[in-house]
């Protein structure tokens, strides 16, 4: 196999912790999101401000996520976005955003992504992150910290309690341990 995902060595399918006699929704489901494209798009401070669009998605404002089937655009900071896509859109981005006004950087391989799902997903976050997760609405995101590791939380689907936790790749295994350890009390299922 040519490519190996960040959590390949640690993400072992199965059920762990207090999983006995619990229904599926009570268990936290954990999944690695891999083979996905991630770009940082930054508009330079002194370049003319205009509405930014890619794939008919307008770049969102503070803490928001704009999304369609394939792409999620996350607000990361002033003039700074993360474009997460199932397909390679480097060329589109390069064409839309001139190098004199924008910095587009492919960081697809520099992140590891964990997806949590289930009624206790937010309780898991509360065990390590001081961020007020209850206030993070669907299609909102935030940068914060979990047991000393910098993360981005992306609220994918409120009613399913489905959230993604994005971290730097090299921290991936430590974060994965920290998250799954926090799941033990509820029981979790690696899928």
């Amino acid at each position, binding site marked *: *196999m*040519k*490519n*190996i*995902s*960040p959590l390949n*060595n640690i993400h072992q399918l199965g059920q762990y*912790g*207090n999983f006995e006699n619990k229904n599926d929704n009570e268990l936290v489901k954990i999944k690695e999101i891999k*083979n996905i494209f991630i770009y*940082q798009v*930054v508009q*330079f*401070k*002194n*370049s003319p401000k205009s509405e930014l669009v890619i794939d008919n998605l307008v770049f969102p404002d503070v803490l928001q996520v704009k999304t369609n089937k394939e792409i999620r655009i996350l607000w990361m900071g002033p003039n700074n976005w993360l474009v997460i896509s199932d397909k390679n859109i480097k060329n589109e981005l390069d064409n839309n955003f001139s*190098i*004199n006004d924008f*910095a587009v*950087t*492919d*960081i*697809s*391989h*520099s*992140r590891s992504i964990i997806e949590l799902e289930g009624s206790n997903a937010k309780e898991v976050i*509360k*065990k*390590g*992150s*001081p*961020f*007020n997760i*209850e*206030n993070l609405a669907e299609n909102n995101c935030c940068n914060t910290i979990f*047991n*000393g*590791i910098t993360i981005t939380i992306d609220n994918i689907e409120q009613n399913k309690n489905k959230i993604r936790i994005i971290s*730097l*790749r*090299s*921290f991936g*295994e*430590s*974060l994965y*341990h*920290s998250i799954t*350890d*926090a799941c*033990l*009390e509820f029981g979790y299922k690696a899928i």
Partner: protein
Amino acid sequence: MSQNFRLEKEGLINRSKKISFKFNGKSYFGYEGDTLASALIANGVHLVGRSFKYHRPRGFFGAGVDDPYALVQLIRNNESIPNVKATEQELFEGLEAKSVNCWPNVNFDIGGINNFLRIFLPAGFYYKTFMWPKSFWYKIYEPFIRKAAGFGVVSHEPDKERYEHKYEYCDLLITGSGPSGLASAYSAAKNGAKVILAEDKPRFGGSLLTSDVNIGNESGKEWADKIITELKGMPNVVVKNRAQVFGYYDHNMLVMSERLTEHLPKSDKFTPKQKLWYIRAKEVVISSGSIERPLVFGNNDTPGVLLSSAAKEYMKVYGVLVGKKPIIFTNNDSAYETAIEFKKNGVDPIVLDSRKELSSDLIKEAKSLGINIKFEYVVVNANGYRKVKSADIAKISDDKTTLGKIENIVCDCICVSGFWTPTIHLASQSGGKTKFNEEIDAFIPSESKQNETTVGSANGIFNLQDSLNTSFEAGYNLSKKITNEDNKLSVPTVVEKKNSKHDKFWCVPLPKGKKYKRFLDFQNDVAVSDIEIAIREGYRSIEHVKRYTTLGMATDQGKTSNLNGLQLVSNIENKLVPEVGHTTFRPPYTPVSIGAIVGREVGKHSKPTRKSPMHSWHEKNNAVFVDAGLWLRPRFYKRGNETLFDASKREAENVRKNVGVCDVTTLGKIDVKGPDAAEFLNRVYTNAWLKLPVGKARYGVMLREDGIVMDDGTTTRVSENHYHMTTTTAQAANVLSHLEYYLQIVWPELNVNVVSTTEQWAGAAIAGPKSRELLQKLFPDTDCSNEGLPFMGFIETKLFGVYARIFRISFSGELAYEVNVESDYGNFMWEKIIEIGNEFKIQPYGTEALSTLRIEMGHVAGSELDGRTTPFDTSLDGLLSKKKDFIGKRSMQKEAFISSKREKIVGVVPLDKKTSIPEGSYIVKDANTKLPNPKLGHVSASCWSVEYNNPFSLAIIKDGKNMIGQKLFALSPLKNKSIPVEIVSSHYVDPKGERVRS
């Protein structure tokens, strides 16, 4: 053994569930719902341990957190736990506990001898003696004192328990579920607020569990149960028992420790023993209640002397009699409730009331029950050693100075009540001010600093109706601010007994000729006489008194002793209590488990570990790893029983002879993009960057503004506006913040973006004479010749279809290349290099070989760039641009930096060409001169030069350049080595740098 002191039916314990337990090896039983203390008292056991200094017998003085002693060693789940408070520890099947601070046992304790020597051991005695002969303090006296001190025993083994954290946000946090807490919680919750109600004890209700009142048409307890049940059912309310809010920190962050399993025989391995809640509350209601004050008299520390409120709680909550011949000694009405409770349970108490005869609802009721009340009477002294046997009592004069004739009455317990002290710790921790309330002789919160409100008896309100009124109001007003809802509840009416005024009297004078110890602090054995000595000797500030006598510095933090201490000082100094002032309250309110504070970041996970994409390959190939910051890097790859020295020598030799490959993923990488990127680099690096062509790399040095070298690395111009910067592994994060600082704050006019791409790229350094041949095979379609890819050149290409970047840069000083691919492909790249490299005898090499190679080349690294060295010291001054300005340039003119005495980097070779020079040795002129021996400089890095097959070191020494050729000594007294050496150039191998260009 039967429970002689257990009442027939009273109490909230579950009599259907018997629980057997052991104390000091003896078996007893109690009931579910008992504490260890209540169960022991039910069995007639009052002697729990020995005091700190005099090793006097100690019993139960309180019924909960207020108890100043009652510490035992608890065995639970095969763990031996020190300093567990028997009055808080709930009983569970098979519980085992032991007394502490006594030897051989609690009944006969050798340490008790101190009690007879006590007149020689007043406050601060140890400052006045143990000074002769000089060495004896540390060798003889101190070890003896240390052995006598301490309470419980803790083993060396790690903690098997699990502790977790939880971050919560709420509108109102309410600390304590007594009447005022319940009222505020209920009215706030009904008004739509998100409420957290925390109760330290297992049972909710606080004083309502023991006081004889009616709220509406229910008893106080029924009302409490009703409210709690309703609160538990509300979605916007979290109700927690066994949860102590112990700290009030900045910006309304409070911390609560929830005890989840300590009341159970054992816990499953996934349920934490404690959960630490970090609660950010918009508003805080402090309803932590109040603690009864002791009255002070002779030998008032004897087991059997206890707070009257505790006696009442043992009866009403646990159905336990603390004694069958009780004396109630009080200066206020509340103790009458205890007397009445005794009477109701068929025990005849004697009440000694220090006040002139007066009347009130309670006193009337007591009289009507035929309770024997002696007004203007006090307890002078408690007789008995391990347990109260009788009391000396006497009439006391109006002015409370003279005692009448001493009478002796037999008793088995003395229940004291010196009125109530509001628990203001949290209010004070928040930074809020306190004021002294003459009414109640105690401090209450005044203006609050953060968003906190104190209600109920914690605020000095001891009347239930007022307490409920103000608490309902508080809950409503505070919630309204937040929810903007307006649902106000009506306050139930209370039927309670009116209290008459208490007596300010609290300390019984000594009868003529008697030297009874009258204790204030029961754990540290601080008596009235100790405070008197302290003040006599000039330790007059309350802080001096506290520190000199250790008053209130025991594990109970003076909950029952501080205020009496203040009273005493104010009497002696003839100041008002507020003038004496109290010592500051700091978290934690009660001792809190260190394990809980730390949580799950223990053992291997105390810090995160960063790994490269090739990590598992290294593991499979016997890499021995080394910590580089949070990263793990292969230090060497062990073959057979090679030592570190053998392996690194082999690996380094192979690089010089053939070719080696090293994982350099951990080096910091930063993408610098934008129209002003070149200008930016020109300002942050000391050398010139404007003219670097696309496709070329350049070595650069960064300084701090104070002129010290911050970091170095190569940066490559990938395209017109795009640079790929590399940093050292150690400084990667700092450099990024540094760059962001200058871009965002200092030079906002620059259009540049910086982002870390460290983990985007897996990096492999291929070094050695055969590296070009290998590279050509890895990239058949790429021209890897010296012309096609010259030194400091850069190309983008494909590695068997995988996008790759090749940089021709060298840290080893050999012909070398660095190949980068996207991290998912890192392992693929690595295996390809090894596979194809085999024919060139490739070997992976670790950081140890890497440093060997760089050292003999004289390349500086972390051990030279240690945050203290300038470009001059490290021979990097050639890179200081004269033409342009840059960060730190202005500091280059400093006298010390340019002085010739300044240290400079050189090479060091042992004259015998055999003896390795330990790193951290010093270079001196004379090896045998007397100390202090003047140092020329230190050895920063050492290696075994594989080029010349002899030891070689780098050193930074005074006037280095002119030292070259000199014969000096390298000294390492720690390893007692003295090595004759010659100073040579730091560029030991290939000084002209031809290989890298070959």
